[in-house]
């Protein structure tokens, strides 16, 4: 009898499922991580179901994506062709689309003190112009050991034309105990390849720690598999960016069976709202917040509203969602955690969260506080709106932002735990739109994991 444990780990939720060969029924539970951390949650699940041994663990790790968005990873050491130490930072996106007296670029995830130029050079036709000097590598090794850095990304120009330097340096640093992430370029732009190597190194410590923590808590000597953009495979020792798209792969698999042609699915989860095309093939480039990154990525487009974005007064005096996303730390006011109203708080006021999975267990009765906070944001000098009007305008604005992304002529497919809410409310204000709910589960990705074969 084989036991398979399936885990879907996101920033604030842990979904656990147990599938056994000798049982038709799967056992599932969703834990709210701010209240019940991973260790406690897994122990609880294992204990409750009296699991003595697990043969396989299939994981979908979404948490590194949030870590990346919030820039909470561990900057690695970066060895780059000398003369280009600043190249990536100089190309970071500008934060503002409008003109500012002091515009800013996106904050760099790199630690400039850990970026080292190496005197090596390969030409555009693969010819070695300056060979690597081993004494320079030796010097860098001692510097890295002093800084106690364990992860090293190697970013050399034209490494796709001649891999000698990359291979040599990779071997050199691995032999000396470092985890090495070489930028194996297979796209025209070296920046995309360099970012890949760096981000893999950046997320490696978190990935390693997460996998070790989970393994410690699970009885037996299970084989670990990880979902990626192209399928589920043996969990690698080194983090790969493709695992950031595991959820989209699993959801695509779930919904591909539905007759939806090439229409996108709009997923309304408790942590994010996004659209994706279940039948689409992977891209070779991922358009991340840092720019293009070499990765086999699934098309996954965040919608203009998110459940834990906060409201504020906008330029016109209306109460509108901002781009600031507070997540669940501190989180929505309705959970008694945050002090600024979020979209989830507005949904809570409509009474639609009382059946929401997991969250319904943690709701606090602070309706009046939330209303006060929302109404207090309105600044329209032309008229003072009633509380009812402020709230209904705020909600309609949110819904209209989603509606502007829908197809007016074709059917629009919704999924996720908040799909019913979005469906009903949008239908109320735009009855001519064709909407269909595919699924209202929070655990669709988890369920898809049960049937995953390792590739």
């Amino acid at each position, binding site marked *: 009898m084989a036991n398979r444990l399936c885990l879907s780990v996101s920033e604030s939720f842990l979904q656990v499922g147990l599938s056994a060969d000798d049982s038709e029924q799967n056992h599932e539970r969703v834990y709210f991580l701010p209240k019940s951390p991973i260790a406690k949650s897994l122990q609880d699940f294992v204990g409750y179901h009296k699991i003595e041994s697990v043969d396989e663990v299939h994981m979908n790790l979404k948490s590194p994506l949030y870590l990346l968005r919030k820039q909470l990873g561990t900057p690695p050491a970066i060895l780059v062709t*000398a*003369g*280009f*130490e*600043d*190249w990536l930072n*100089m*190309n970071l996106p*500008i934060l*503002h*689309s*409008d*003109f*500012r*007296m*002091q*515009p*800013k*670029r996106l904050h760099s995830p790199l630690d400039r003190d850990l970026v080292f130029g190496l005197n090596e050079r390969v*030409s*555009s036709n693969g010819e070695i*112009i300056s060979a690597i000097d081993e004494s320079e590598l030796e010097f860098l090794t001692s510097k890295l050991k002093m800084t106690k850095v364990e992860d090293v990304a190697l970013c050399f*120009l*034209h490494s*796709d034309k001649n891999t000698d330097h990359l291979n040599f340096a990779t071997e050199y640093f691995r032999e000396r105990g470092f985890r090495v992430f070489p930028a194996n*370029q297979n796209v*025209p*732009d*070296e*920046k995309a390849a360099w970012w890949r190597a760096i981000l893999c190194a950046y997320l490696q410590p978190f990935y390693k720690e997460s996998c070790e923590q989970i393994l410690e808590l699970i009885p037996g000597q299970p084989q670990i598999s990880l979902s990626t953009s192209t399928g589920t495979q043996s969990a690698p020792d080194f983090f790969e960016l493709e695992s950031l798209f595991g959820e989209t792969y699993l959801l695509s698999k779930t919904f591909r069976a539905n007759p939806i042609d090439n229409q996108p699915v709009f997923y309304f989860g408790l942590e994010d709202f996004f659209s994706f095309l279940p039948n689409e093939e992977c891209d070779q480039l991922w358009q991340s917040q840092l720019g293009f990154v070499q990765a086999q990525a699934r098309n996954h487009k965040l919608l*203009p509203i998110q459940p834990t974005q906060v409201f504020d007064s*906008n*330029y*016109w*005096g*209306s109460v*509108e969602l901002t781009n600031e996303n507070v997540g669940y730390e501190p989180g929505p006011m309705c959970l008694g955690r945050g002090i600024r109203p979020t979209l989830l708080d507005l949904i809570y006021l409509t009474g639609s969260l009382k059946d929401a999975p997991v969250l319904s267990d943690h709701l606090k009765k602070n309706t009046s506080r939330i209303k006060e906070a929302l109404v207090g944001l309105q600044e*329209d000098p*032309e*008229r003072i*709106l009633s509380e009812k*009007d402020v709230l209904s*305008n705020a909600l*309609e*604005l949110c819904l*209209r*932002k989603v*509606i*502007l992304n*829908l197809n*007016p002529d074709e059917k629009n497919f919704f999924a996720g735990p908040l799909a019913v809410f979005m469906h009903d409310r949008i239908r109320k*204000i*735009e009855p001519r*739109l064709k909407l269909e709910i595919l699924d209202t589960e929070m655990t669709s990705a988890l369920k898809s994991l049960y049937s995953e074969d390792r590739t």
Partner: protein
Amino acid sequence: MNPSGQYTLLQQVFESILSDFVGAAIIDESGRALAIKSSDLVDLGSFPTAAEVSDKYMQLKHNEVVLLNDPHSGGSHLSSMTLVMGYEKLASRSGNKKLLFCARIPFRPVLGEGDTLDQEGIRIPPAPVFSDGNINTELMSALLQHPLCPEHFKSYIEKGLEKLLKASKSLESQSSMLGFSFSDKLVNDYLDQSHKRCLKALDDFSLGETKLEQSLDAGKTKLALHLTSEEKLIRFDFTGTTASQTLHLTDNATFGACAGALFSALGLVVPKNHGSLQTINVVTPKNSMVNSTANKSMYLGMTDGTSLVASLALKAIGQIDPRKRLAQSGISQCSIELIFEDGKRYFDHNQMGLAAGPEQPGVDALDPWKRSHLNPSIAQVESRFPLKVLSHSLRQKSGGSGFNQGGDGVTRKLETTQSSTMIWRIFDEWKKNEGIEGGKTGSGPEVAVTFSDGKSQSLGASGKIELPAGSVITIHSAGGGGVGEIPKETEDF
């Protein structure tokens, strides 16, 4: 939905439609901008003129498109094409009103070897390029045969047309899903409210006036600005400005520079439309540097020139309202063009160090007045051109020191592996970017060449030079000025 909600959604619709473009605008048939997405300062001022001129001569129907690049017809410099398309689905009491979509299609600039406009590219007055679902193949064929026709011209224009048609369809479908009527009354109210809210934002500005003068072209040119901040208007009066030998801006470009400077100083995101632009009045004497009608080369004026005007405007704003004081940012993009013996042409420009402010240091290597930047992949440059990029890095310590340091500029080193002709255009009149309140000046821009025999030559502001293979070109862009004195203890340390 209440009016402020409607304006929010309308702004959202416009922004989403224009999001696919580098620089674009939606203009009504009275020439009022409903929304502008600007990739640079020129866009802010020139799109309404492009729309007005195109519709005046062509009477554009729904989905008919005109192509132009003439700077005096609402274009920018000649390497930047503009498409203008008619849209006739805006409901009004008297039947459908027309809107005009404008989109900028940038190409690799040509610096031109002389000082006339025609040497910088083909000059295209408004010409019909698309109607009844078809491209004007005759026009396209004629343009493609021109020796200065940009590379990839046909494919980029076709892509631009595709995007415009998509935008037209998008506006039609999104306007039907707003939940309220997208009528010309709504548009009028929207612009009216934009004006009122921009005025409210200006309430925060100090009232007053100031005069500034800048000497250029080794003292032969005067750039004069009299800035007046009144209750309902900010006036930028350039009376007293003379003609220049090197910098030529259109009045639209000057307007855009002043508008960009003002909006940046407001410190909040203002929708760019006729309503907000009505709060600005710009006076530019004809045939002066800031309203040039001569057949002179425009590239430097429409790039470094607009940056210069915006910087001067910001300086003046800082004099009236000290809370807005900043040190001086780098101005010049340090543009170079290499024409190789095999016919390939390589163009490059660089970002500069930004001024420090009272609250924070200057940002490194960031052009404050451009929203799309040319930073192609090193690997691709070396694969396409007979060039070796030796380095592209921050120009260390080029920002002026101070309590808040100015931003560093950029150092770029290129080695040619084939003989070539280099043309360069740098505005270096502001040799040092001033610091304020005790902060030091930032370094000025520089270009130099080192030949294969080791000899070096520092180059002036602009020119042309023959380079043998193995020459190394070093470009240093300017650093920003610093703010405040460094505390003595830190200095001693």
